[in-house]
């Protein structure tokens, strides 16, 4: 945070009466000169009011944009909505030849968002499963046991990790992570967990839910860990000292004093990370395999709500296909708004009492 410092020089043009606090008529003379000067530079009621309203309008633009996006999505998805209704999100069709369930068939006009909902949920869940323990570990390390010297650089690295564009994560995943999963991780997982049916070896590409989950985990880790760190640092020092004074070890102190006090904020941080994972598009679209199917195996190809839009929107030929894609977008919009609102409220509830807040 930059320190606020205002120099006399900045005030000079506004106050053209240097040392003009003299007694008697000199003062009144000066005052009138100030008034004349100010009047000549637009000191009038309408200028003030105009500026006020300009700022209000700009602030209301933000309202307008969100409303515009929402109405546009609703209007453009009318066609799919009137044709499928709520069944859009949980029905499926049956392929007349193979008798297998058929979810998404643009050629014959069959649309159901079910596989994309499933794909989004599974990949986000896997991402959270991987990222949350790591992120909390990093946050504990940074707030409780990291030497002062390392703290700055580590925070900087976290910030950088958050600033890398998702398409670069995707490029990295395609060239390094996918071969790694294909040759090492997936066969190993099949050998260990194949009996549960959660992993299978019928997908030789190395793409799939798990790969997407791993890359999502890398992307949401910095968000969760930096927010968790923020929440943890609001736990008062006296709490920690009290627990330590009762004879707790360092780990007990962290568990009892820090984690328990900060748990609501940590949940908020996790949900905020979930919000990012749900809407993440490019990296996921590059590694998830893009097939509109539901598989029990986490190594199978799939598709998420965001990735199907990215892949098919520019090729959508007929109105119904496009309308169905926009309806998926609308669903994504609504879900992320809800998730973000819950997360914001939780984080806000915790940091409200913090001294950093100036309200």
């Amino acid at each position, binding site marked *: *945070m930059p320190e606020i410092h205002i120099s006399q020089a900045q005030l000079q043009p506004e106050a053209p009466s240097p040392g003009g606090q003299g007694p008697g008529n000199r003062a009144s003379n000066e005052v009138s000169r100030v008034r004349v000067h100010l009047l000549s530079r637009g000191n009038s009621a309408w200028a003030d009011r105009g500026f006020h309203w300009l*700022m209000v309008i700009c602030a209301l633009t*933000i309202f307008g944009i969100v409303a515009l996006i929402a109405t546009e999505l609703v209007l453009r998805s009318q066609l799919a909505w009137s044709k499928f209704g709520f069944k859009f999100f949980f029905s499926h069709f049956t392929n007349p030849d193979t008798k297998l369930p058929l979810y998404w068939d643009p050629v014959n006009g069959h649309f159901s968002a079910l596989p994309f909902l499933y794909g989004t949920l599974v990949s986000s869940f896997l991402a959270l499963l991987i990222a949350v323990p790591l992120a909390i570990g990093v946050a504990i390390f940074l707030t409780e046991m990291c030497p002062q010297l390392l703290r700055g650089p580590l925070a900087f690295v976290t*910030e950088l990790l958050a*600033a*890398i564009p998702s398409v670069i994560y995707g490029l990295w995943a395609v060239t390094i992570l996918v071969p790694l999963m294909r040759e090492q991780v997936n066969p190993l997982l099949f050998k260990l967990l194949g009996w549960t049916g959660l992993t299978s070896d019928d997908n030789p590409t190395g793409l799939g839910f798990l790969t997407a989950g791993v890359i999502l985990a890398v992307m949401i880790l910095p968000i969760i860990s930096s927010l968790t760190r923020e929440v943890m640092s609001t736990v008062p020092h006296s709490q920690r000292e009290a627990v330590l004074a009762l004879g707790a070890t360092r780990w007990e102190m962290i568990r009892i004093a820090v984690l328990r006090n900060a748990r609501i904020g940590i949940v908020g941080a996790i949900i905020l990370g979930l919000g990012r994972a749900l809407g*993440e*598009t490019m990296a996921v679209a590059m590694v998830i395999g893009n097939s509109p199917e539901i598989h029990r195996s986490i190594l199978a190809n799939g598709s998420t709500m965001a990735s199907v839009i990215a892949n098919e929107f520019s090729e959508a030929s007929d109105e119904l296909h496009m309308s169905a894609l926009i309806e998926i977008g609308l669903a994504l919009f609504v879900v992320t708004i809800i998730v*973000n609102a819950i997360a*914001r409220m939780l984080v806000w509830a915790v940091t409200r009492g913090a001294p950093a807040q100036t309200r």
Partner: protein
Amino acid sequence: MIAPLVAIFVYLIYKGAVSLNLDFFTRNPVPVGELGGGMANAIVGSAILLGVGSLIGVPVGISGGIFLAEFGRGSRLATAIRFTADVLNGVPSIVMGIAIYSLIVVPQKHFSALSGGVALGIMMIPTVCRTTEEMLLMVPHAVREAALALGVPNWRSVLAITVKTASPGIITGCMLAFARVAGETAPLIFTAFGNSNWTVNPNEAMAALPLQIYVYALSPYDEWHKLAWAGSLVLIVLIVAAVSLVRYVTSRGVLKGAS
């Protein structure tokens, strides 16, 4: 947790540096099979898109922040706007893409850099707005009162005193928003669309660095993969430079009190 970052970075620099040369900056993409070629059009395209985005995002964002901090403090409208800005911040970029597609591209009947710039600009607004608000709230009241006591009209006091005092922080917010949207791909797929030719006309489809990386990364050609890595290196150097500059400026206080 630093392992993935280091892995990405080392690989990126290695791969990028190998395939980066002068052609990359000066030539347009060439068809598959031909050697060489670069991303000159994508670099210029990215610059134009970001320029349009900043023109929209920065003024609206800063004005919104001024309203939140100076005029609407504690009012119900301000709370609602603050919440809406947070919502806008969480809207997935792909949803922004389809919204702008149906708002601008469909009526215009063709893809254009303008629509891509609008999408990026809208994505910048919440970040700029919230940082501006936070920075303005840190300006002490005494400064505002001093200005008003001198008979300075309120709008001049806000612009010339409060905003100027908080300017380093506001610039930081703008840079962060800029770095964030510089790498966005999803909202550009259906708006700027990409273009393999040279163009500076904002009313045409235009190439952008992240878009080009996306297209090249998914292609099966080695030559194109190399170009994608080079493009990533350029993009990441740009973003890291912006973020580090922001950090340096805010921590060293180079701009502290300067105007």
